[in-house]
């Protein structure tokens, strides 16, 4: 190695620390920014949940304090359970979302398998047919959809919501699943066929392989169905078929001046969903990431 003069040697630490400092400054700035946005994203809901357990006076006097023995009050929750049927709303939302999801996954994988596996006349046309549904929101067809649902005698039933959500969720599901399906190695299927398996059996055999894709599709499909306000309002607004979103919206319209009840209703409709989200968040975000890269 070449020898350095004393003057040069002295400058090294400065150069190094200069670069390090710049990296450090970027790093600190980055964490500040991320923390600020994490706080902004979570604080409003946290504040609502926190205050839902307090007496009215404490909600307004010191909204930032945790409830204590003196301020703890469940009056809001009592009102919500007396005046509305949140357990029913939850049942409705769960029934609609899970049934629709099961059908989207089943029918979606079947179509994806056929599109990726067989070349038949109209294959590309069918892909376009499904692509159309990704671009155009199903809500724009509501005028005709309402008539159709009425004529099928499904109006005011949970099945009205299920069929519409399945129809609306299929295009994106088919799109993602077809991408995954076309990556399943052909040898596997051909080996099964040599053993005399029917095409239905081949389909059944490769289902486990595309499990990761069904995770992505579930994550993408569930959220808009669970949260939808439009179709419950248009197709099933009755008390017996109210979903959590519609039920909470109607309740909050009626009790807009009862802060305890408002905070309790908001907490009841968001906390269970958030808990499930935090438990499954790692898979969910990984699923979304995988889905985004594929597309």
């Amino acid at each position, binding site marked *: 190695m070449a020898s350095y003069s004393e003057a040069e040697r002295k400058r090294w630490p400065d150069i190094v620390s200069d670069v390090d400092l710049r990296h450090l400054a*970027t790093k600190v700035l*980055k964490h500040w920014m*991320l*923390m600020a*946005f*994490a706080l902004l*994203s979570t604080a*409003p*809901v946290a504040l609502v949940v926190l205050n839902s357990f307090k007496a009215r006076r404490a*909600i307004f006097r010191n*909204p930032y304090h945790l409830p204590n023995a003196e301020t703890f009050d469940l009056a809001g929750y009592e009102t919500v359970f007396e005046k509305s049927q949140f357990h029913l709303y939850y049942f409705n939302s769960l029934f609609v979302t899970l049934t629709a999801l099961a*059908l989207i996954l*089943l*029918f979606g994988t*079947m*179509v994806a*398998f056929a599109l*990726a*596996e*067989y*070349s*038949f006349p109209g294959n590309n046309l069918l892909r376009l047919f499904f692509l*159309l*549904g990704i671009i155009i929101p199903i*809500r*724009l*067809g*509501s*005028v*005709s959809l309402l008539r*159709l649902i009425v004529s099928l005698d499904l109006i005011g039933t949970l099945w009205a919501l299920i*069929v519409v959500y*399945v*129809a609306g969720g*299929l*295009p994106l599901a088919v799109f993602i699943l*077809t991408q995954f399906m076309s990556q399943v190695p052909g040898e596997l299927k*051909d080996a099964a066929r*040599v053993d005399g398996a029917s095409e*239905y059996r081949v389909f059944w055999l490769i289902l486990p392989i595309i499990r990761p894709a069904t995770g992505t599709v579930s994550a993408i499909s569930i*959220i808009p169905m669970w*949260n*939808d*306000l439009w179709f419950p309002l248009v197709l099933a607004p009755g008390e017996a078929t109210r979903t*959590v*979103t519609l039920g*909470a*919206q109607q309740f*909050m319209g009626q009790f807009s001046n009862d*802060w305890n009840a*408002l905070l309790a209703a*908001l907490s009841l409709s*968001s906390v269970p*969903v*958030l808990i499930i*989200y935090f438990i499954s968040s790692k898979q969910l*975000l990984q699923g979304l*990431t995988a889905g*985004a*890269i594929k597309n």
Partner: protein
Amino acid sequence: MTASLSQQGQPKNRKPFPLHIVVFLAPAVVIYGLFMIYPLFDSLRLGFFVQVTRGVEQFVGTQNYLTLLTDEAILQPRLLNALKNSFLFFAVNMLVQNPIALFLAAALSTKTRGGLLYRVLIFSPAILSLAIAGFVWRLVLSPLWGVVYDILKALGLGAYAQPWLGLESTALITLALISAWQYLGIPMMLYFATLISIPNELFEAAYVDGATDWQIFWRIKLPLLMPMVGIVSLLTYIGNFNAFDVIFALKGADAGPNYASDTMMTFFYRTFFGSGFQKADPHMGAAVAGTMFVILLAGVLLYLLIRRRIRSYEL
């Protein structure tokens, strides 16, 4: 294209439509065709009809559309106002949500301690419904509760505090910002996914030369992100043209104050189902939906045109 993969093992393919393919396709095609494609096109058709008497419809050509564009009493001003507001709603999301999402994703895609936790927290509002998240903000912004005013005062900005959701001049922008806040995590995750799929070798050399994360972001990552910026913009456009839930939940079908927060979707709802000041008219509603259909397709076409001009780098 993908079907060629298994063609050797598939002598059956020569027949036009083997039964098993029909079985695989039928359920999805029937449900999707019947409950999505048919209503969309039938709604377009209904826009060219009026109801004469109960159950009897008459074809009137473009009359509904002409009325929509020329009725100076109600429809035309409402349409223009809703159109303007819908674009404003989209613009706020585009200009606020999109850049913030991009910067957060850029920060998260470099080695970050607690990166997963940040992503989980920032994404969390997106799983709530807009109606619920909107109501949370209505309480937080309420002058009665005063939470936001406390915070502004603490920052020395107390003088700027206003009941934003209630003012004609700020209601729409506030609603758009609530929506931008809620769905920030979605474009963030899309950008993040793109960024982490960029191979490290592409910027390792720059690191060795002492470039900061900031420089690497501008010079290397951003150009590679441009195609995703286009996709996110299109998704923002489609998603926000649908904007309904937060406005309906907080402002009702009349999208007050004085229609200041009225968008195409709330206008569609009112025209279809009626409200205090507007008669319910499904056929006119279908014409409004038809108008939205055209605007949406125009946006998609514009995207396709622009996309061909953006240089995309093959990784």
